């Protein structure tokens, strides 16, 4: 089993070509589904999970979805490859850690969607797009859901909708999220206001790698918490027409304020980031995310033209431990890894000596 093209390709969502990608890196819509007549994953026997896996694999790999889809059993998958899938946001950390033969993920080779089997729910179907493309992402995830549903009965009740292991997902089973780059709100100290406001209207704010992770690189994931009593269209429309435009407007205001009132400090941050990234001989992963964030801000504001956005987007990912080791072709630890990271970044920024 090999991840093949996934390692060498940068996913569609990374190209940074989507609408409003100056602030919004990616849009994601995922559906939680469970098969009717089976207990939820945490309460099921090994045999039951295997049966669930078989049914899902048949439907995913032998039908309309099968083209360009890679099936990955997570136990047979090497540790570094599992980690790579986490860094790509194709599986959760929880899914990667599991020591269960009945856990798997189906990934399309363009990385527009992934289907986790036997994670917290029997099925977690997710679509990832660059920039603000929530309606498109929903359209695709809904289509996949319809295809799977042709042969598999879902646990569904009239009152509670799609039944999920955790009641925070029950109803639509839909989680909509956007990955936002908010460096100016961070630099101006306004970010806490946005966090509070988002929380007040029942949105979750998380860091780059989800639950409990910090917002390294000024990257924030904002997602809906409410899944019951509101339709998919309502949830999507609030995101697309209210939440996302307003956060973008706030970030733009903060960027303009920085330009007008603190342009020297701003340029200092940007050029320091450039200097360190192109000169340092050892770099830690968190430090890199912070520096790349400042550099990305500089490029988006036209303060620096020595690098393009796509390269920066890619470096956010390639500087992560698993990607680094895949590129290097062998395991790297501690100082060696920091050295390898600095080297990769210098090379990608055209500053290798």
């Amino acid at each position, binding site marked *: 089993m090999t991840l093949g093209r996934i390692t060498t390709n940068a996913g569609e969502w990374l190209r940074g070509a989507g609408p409003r990608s100056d602030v919004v890196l990616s849009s994601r819509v995922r559906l939680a589904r469970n098969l009717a*007549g089976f207990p939820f994953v945490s309460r099921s026997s090994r045999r039951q999970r295997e049966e669930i896996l078989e049914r899902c694999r048949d439907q995913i790999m032998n039908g309309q979805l099968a083209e360009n889809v890679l099936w990955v059993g997570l136990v047979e998958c090497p540790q570094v490859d599992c980690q790579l899938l986490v860094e790509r946001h194709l599986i959760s950390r929880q899914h990667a850690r599991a020591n269960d033969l009945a856990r798997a993920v189906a990934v399309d080779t363009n990385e527009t969607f992934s289907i986790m089997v036997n994670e917290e729910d029997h099925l977690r179907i997710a679509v990832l797009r660059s920039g603000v493309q929530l309606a498109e992402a929903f359209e695709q995830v809904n289509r996949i*859901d319809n295809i799977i549903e042709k042969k598999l009965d879902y646990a569904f009740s009239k009152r509670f909708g799609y039944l999920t292991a955790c009641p925070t997902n029950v109803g639509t089973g839909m989680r909509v999220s956007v990955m936002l780059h908010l460096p100016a709100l961070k630099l101006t100290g306004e970010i806490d206001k946005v966090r509070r406001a988002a929380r007040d209207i029942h949105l979750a704010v998380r860091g780059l790698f989800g639950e409990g992770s910090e917002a390294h690189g000024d990257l924030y994931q904002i997602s809906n918490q409410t899944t*019951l*009593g509101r339709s998919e269209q309502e949830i999507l429309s609030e995101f697309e027409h209210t939440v996302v435009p307003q956060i973008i407007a706030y970030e733009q205001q903060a960027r303009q304020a920085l330009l007008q009132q603190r342009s020297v400090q701003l340029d200092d941050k940007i050029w320091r980031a450039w200097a360190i990234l192109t000169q340092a001989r050892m770099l830690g992963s968190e430090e890199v995310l912070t520096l790349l964030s400042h550099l990305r801000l500089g490029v988006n504001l036209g303060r620096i033209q020595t690098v393009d956005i796509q390269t920066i987007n890619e470096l956010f990912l390639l500087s992560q431990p698993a990607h680094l080791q895949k590129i290097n072709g062998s395991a790297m630890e501690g100082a060696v890894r920091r050295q390898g990271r600095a080297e990769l970044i210098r090379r990608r920024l055209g500053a290798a000596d």
Partner: protein
Amino acid sequence: MVLVWGPQAVKKICDKCNHPATVHEVEIVKGQKIEKHLCDDHAREEGIAVGADYKPINELLTNFVKMHSGSAPAHDLVCDNCGMGFSEFRENSLLGCPQCYIAFEAPLSPLLERAQDNGTHHIGKVPQRCGIGERRQEQLLRMRNRLAEAVKSEDFELAARLRDDISQFEGVVE
């Protein structure tokens, strides 16, 4: 209910006083659109949940446990299909099977209502083929449960019979 949030919302002041409005509601009554803009205090007075009241379900569950920490575990509700106890659910916030939603309905409903922003009933997508009815879902779940128990106790004769029953049951189109 529609909540508006952000700069354009902040500009409005409360309908009942001069404080900035933080809660914005649009109600449709007899085809008439009625807008309400209220400050936190007046929103609370009107019985509208204000943002700060909202807590994610895990936190709600923890508080629930704290509130009832004195109560005897002997009264624990148990799902008669999967054997999951409500106290166990409170600990890890995962239910055991679809039937748990029915078994725990009484204590779960108020928690859900708060965690789901007053949502109590599903609105939205319904499986296209309408799947199998709730009654059949439950029957299937119980048959599979019996099968798992038969396998566990190594009663292979019973297990084989149950397996046949299940495939026959699944084969029957409603």
